[in-house]
């Protein structure tokens, strides 16, 4: 215990001090500068993509020399419609909320209020699996493992939760709900343990294996949803879960905001505690920082690889559990809107730190939820979000681009080694 404490101090002193003389708030915000600019730049490029793929904008630019005003206003209109819909779909309008509250107080009619609260609560509903899945990827990164299999672990976790949720019919909620949540975590952990074990024992790289596990999970869920877990009817979906297994919702229906969001925040705090305040977490980070040094110090590399993948998979499975127990109440094909893949982007954006992941998760939940509205209102395919996310990953991973674009001078920050080649 004594030894690990002193090592912990040694690691902490390596973190470069922010330049002295800056006010405290600027020093605190400094690590957020590059991620914030990365998101901003991603949105700007997304706007450009939206404009140049819009036929009316392109047509307006054909006459740019004779009527430049038309071209510019068409561009502005195209982008404003899209991002306006994005904003309305994700945050909603404050004045509507105010009017909704007034109407509710005056007449007891909650319809306008519910309508006004729908966008922001949906954003938080979408943020819930994002935070948990992002924590999963981040925990893997801390151990030097790149878990691309979060999508598959999410599916398996959701299926396990759904199964517990609809199979047991007469359990009290205080047993049924924890059991269903636990089943999701265990399912995800199992799915993550396989590539972790293979990595530890045979050296097979987790990137390829987790992707293979994703495809196996998709095929397995196809089979389960068309066979053993299929509800009566022709659609390939599971039966509805029992109400005793559902995560309680905070507001009356149709608002879907549920306690899963607070569960996610609690789990984030737990992950922070585990990673930075316990010996287990210290060993995981030591393996991630330098496996050779960790091995020399007597850390069991094999065990930590497996443990990190199990925990990472459990977090991904929890994400699936909240989605099925809180939001959807059943599992169908295409159940995940790519949460597992987006989680990679947000773990990088959050610098693999639980707090960063929470912030990034809420941001991505907002974007994704607004993009659904953007698709229906402005006809912009929701895949634009993936493009923006890929750009954000690139900008966060290559801060040199951001520094060059915005002419920021910055000391070279300590860079976490995320992954290694095939052999290690």
């Amino acid at each position, binding site marked *: 215990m004594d030894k690990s404490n002193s090592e912990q101090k040694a690691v902490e002193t390596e973190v470069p001090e922010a330049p002295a003389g800056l006010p405290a708030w600027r020093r605190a915000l400094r690590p957020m500068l590059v991620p914030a600019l990365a998101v901003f730049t991603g949105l700007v490029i997304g706007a450009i*993509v939206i404009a140049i*793929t819009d036929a009316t904008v392109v047509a307006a630019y054909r006459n740019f020399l004779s009527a430049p005003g038309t071209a510019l206003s068409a561009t502005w209109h195209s982008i404003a419609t899209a991002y306006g819909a994005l904003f309305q779909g994700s945050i909603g309008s404050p004045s509507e909320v105010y009017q909704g509250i007034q109407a509710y107080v005056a007449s007891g009619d909650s319809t306008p209020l519910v309508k006004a609260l729908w966008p922001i609560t949906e954003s938080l509903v979408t943020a819930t699996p994002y935070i948990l899945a992002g924590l999963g990827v981040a925990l893997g990164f801390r151990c030097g493992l*790149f878990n*691309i299999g979060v999508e598959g672990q999410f599916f398996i976790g959701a299926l396990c939760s759904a199964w517990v949720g609809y199979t047991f019919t007469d359990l009290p909620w205080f047993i049924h709900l924890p059991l269903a949540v636990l089943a999701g975590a265990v399912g995800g952990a199992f799915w993550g343990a396989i590539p972790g074990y*293979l990595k*530890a*024992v*045979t*050296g*097979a*790289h987790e*990137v*390829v294996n987790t*992707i*293979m*596990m*994703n*495809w*196996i999970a998709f*095929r*397995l869920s*196809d*089979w389960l949803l*068309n*066979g053993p877990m299929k509800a009566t009817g022709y659609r390939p979906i599971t039966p509805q879960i029992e109400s005793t297994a559902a995560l309680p919702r905070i507001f009356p229906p149709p608002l879907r905001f549920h306690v899963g969001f607070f569960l996610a925040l609690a789990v984030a705090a737990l992950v922070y505690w585990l990673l930075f305040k316990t010996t287990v977490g210290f060993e995981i980070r030591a393996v991630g920082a330098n*496996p050779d040094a960790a*091995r020399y110090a*007597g850390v*069991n*590399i*094999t065990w930590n*690889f497996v443990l990190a993948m199990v925990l990472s998979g459990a977090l991904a499975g929890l994400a699936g559990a909240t989605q099925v127990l809180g939001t959807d109440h059943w599992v169908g094909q295409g159940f995940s809107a790519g949460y597992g*893949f987006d989680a*990679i*982007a947000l773990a*990088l954006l959050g610098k693999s730190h639980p707090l960063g992941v929470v912030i990034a998760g809420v941001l991505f939940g907002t974007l994704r939820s607004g993009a659904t509205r953007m698709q229906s209102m402005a006809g*912009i*395919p929701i*895949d*634009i*979000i*993936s*493009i923006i*996310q*890929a*750009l954000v*990953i*690139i900008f966060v*991973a*290559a801060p*040199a*681009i951001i520094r060059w674009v915005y002419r920021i001078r910055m000391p070279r920050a300590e860079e976490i*080694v*995320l*992954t*290694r*080649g*095939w*052999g*290690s």
Partner: protein
Amino acid sequence: MTTTTAQIARPVSMSRSRWMGILFLAIGLAIFLLFGRALEPGLQAKFGLNPGYASQAIHIPDLVLPVQSTIYVLALLILFLGGWQLARGFRSSDAVLGVVALFFVVAFLTWAARGKSFNLVGMLGSSLVRATPIALAALCGVMSERCGVVNIAIEGIMLSSALAAVVAGTVTHNLYIGLLVAMLTGGLLAAVHAVLSISLKVDQIVSGTAINIFAAGATSFIAARFLEKNIDKLNNSGTFPILPIPLLSKIPLLGPILFENGLIVYLTLILAVLIHFMLFYTPWGLHTRAVGEHPRAADTLGINVYLVRYVNVILGGMVAGVGGAYFTIGSVGRFDEIMTAGKGFIGLAAMIFGKWNPFGAFASSLIFGFADSLQIKLQILRVPIPSEFLLMAPYVVTMIVLAGVVGRAIPPAADGQPYEKQ
């Protein structure tokens, strides 16, 4: 507590060879128990040795095997090999493992085709065709990893060039232009990976993942925004025709498998030879391998490390671009979202299994192609296994292969490490 991954990955040879023997015995017994039971003695399995379509090949009689005795003989042979392995040990147990796996597959096919007929030539032919994109992905991987750049962006590169090929081919009504545009797209995305990972020293796996996510998003975005409404104008290119090679295609068995294919399959065979020649018989190849093993030493000798890496990664991207073109203008003639379905990653597994050698990578792609075409044939034969499980076969095979060889296959020493000039 002090066991290391290296030690675990390379188990002591004694115990490994013993495990191998036990594995062989288990496989032999499994054949008895799974396939050998409850067979009527007179049952036969017919293997077609002629392609199912009108072909130029000389017709030869089909192979008819008695099911029960074939399975028993194969099982006994495997048991004998297992016993020999335990008692005396083979010098190269990997080769024997290959033989055992082959026997197992033959026994399985005989069991699956019992009382029916099964077109063997057709299946081997489709194995080659299905191995094509995997082989091209693997060749792309070989080119960039031999010079020390891990490229997991292959999946995204193939997806993008699949889209580029079909759009260019449909618009110009010329599939060759489609192929060219696919190669350029592949080269362009690989160049992005090169800038990020070589110049900006971004973690190569992160860079590759970003490109994969970008490609998935961008192709789906374009498909949803443009292709769905204009299928005939943008997304209906037709495919390369089958080009039988004169004379060679007349050879029985080999002719229909190897010499009655589309352009991209031939191109793959040529590229495998070409890349092998380039890597091992030219000064450029020597430079490439030197940079992949020890960039500092190569730099000292006056080799431009960055140039070698850039050129190899971009050329590799063009090879993967051909692989992408296979998905659309090489096989179905239109683009579907996420149609590569992990083939790029399976290609990486083939590269590792092939020990970073062009020929090895090609040969192991054939195994994955075989697994892929086997699952389709088995669905046709109505084997009592749900089709979803058969669809898992290529992915499961990939994991088994990786688990079996990695740790013993040695990657280029500088693989995945950015080079910083001093």
